[in-house]
């Protein structure tokens, strides 16, 4: 299964990024082959609508699950049009979250925030 996660750097040792739309990178990880690819998030520098553009990237990479600490309402609207499951990360360790997902211990992300829209997220 291919999964995606917002991450702070291009390494498996880095931390999960607290922002979905404006994360610098996305990790695309294959839970079977254990292959990892790091994508630059082209939405990070957007003036607005970063969540929408980031969600489009996730969808285009044909992942089955997105692991993220948070998700805004516009990004959630994009994800809703897909079959991608959104899970809430348990801590900032990439490995812990992958293990938790494999063990079936991650819960679905059901809190969607209204977005920061120029208030707080720069």
């Amino acid at each position, binding site marked *: 299964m291919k999964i995606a996660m917002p991450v702070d750097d291009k390494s498996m040792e880095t931390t999960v990024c607290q922002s979905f739309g404006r994360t610098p990178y996305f990790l695309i990880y294959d839970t079977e082959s254990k292959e990892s690819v790091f994508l630059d998030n082209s939405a990070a520098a*957007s003036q607005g*609508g970063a969540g929408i553009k980031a969600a489009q990237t996730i969808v285009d990479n044909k992942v089955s699950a997105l692991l993220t600490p948070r998700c805004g309402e516009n990004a959630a*609207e994009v994800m809703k049009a897909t079959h991608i499951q959104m899970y809430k990360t348990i801590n900032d360790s990439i490995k812990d979250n992958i293990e938790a997902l494999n063990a079936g211990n991650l819960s679905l992300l059901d809190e969607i925030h209204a977005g920061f829209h120029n208030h707080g997220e720069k």
Partner: protein
Amino acid sequence: MKIAVLSGKGGTGKTLVSVNLAAVAKESIYIDCDVEEPNGHLYFKPEDIESEEISIKIPFVDETLCHGCRKCTDFCRFNALAYINKLIVFDEVCHSCGGCVLICPEKALAEKEKIIGEVQSGVSEKVTVITGILNTGEASGIPIIKKLLSHLAENKGLSFIDCPPGSACIVMESIKDADYCIFVAEPTLFGVHNLNMVYELVTLFDKPHGVVLNKCLEGENPAEKFCLEKGIKILGKIPFDNELGTLNSNALIAVREEIKYRDMFSSLLQMVTEEVQA
């Protein structure tokens, strides 16, 4: 003569100054550009109100024509479009530039009108009162401000533009055509910080400007000190005055109630007029 009244934060006295200046002038136009919370009309209580709805254009897609080429999603710098098996339009993110409609090779996109607010105009004695109202939840009041200021295009008389607080796009739009800018500042360090924001903005726009020091108390006034340091013209001082505050919080126009306030704002208007003509 178009005079914009602005400040870096809310509550400094923009509306107090612009309403009273407009009311003390023989004949004038008062325009409330604080479209998120217009309150000048509460003082003027204008009559013979005429309203006009303001709308923007939002794209919509004909799914039978869209082939999913994504030229529009790539083009949109505001990321208002996403393509997941079909095109999704985020109305609130759209800035109505119309680019997606132009760029679509299949002509699958067209525009629809979306009402975002209204402009009301009425009369209060010799003041024409024009108010912009942005509907709650809408992202940008710019289209309303554009419409408001179009009322001044042909006007040669005196007009006062009551600006939104801050120094963002909406303020830039409000002062764009102004001949003169009046800052209203409070006598605190926080007031100085906010005054500096609008001072920098107006300097960037190269507009002639001056300051009204509001809520003045005995003792040191950091805003006054700032003006002296920067060489900003001080147009007048309004004291921290219980009577003026009471009139104002009862939505009364001070110059229409008390001769002393009429004199105070008349001299301020005189000062501003001289500055504009200088």
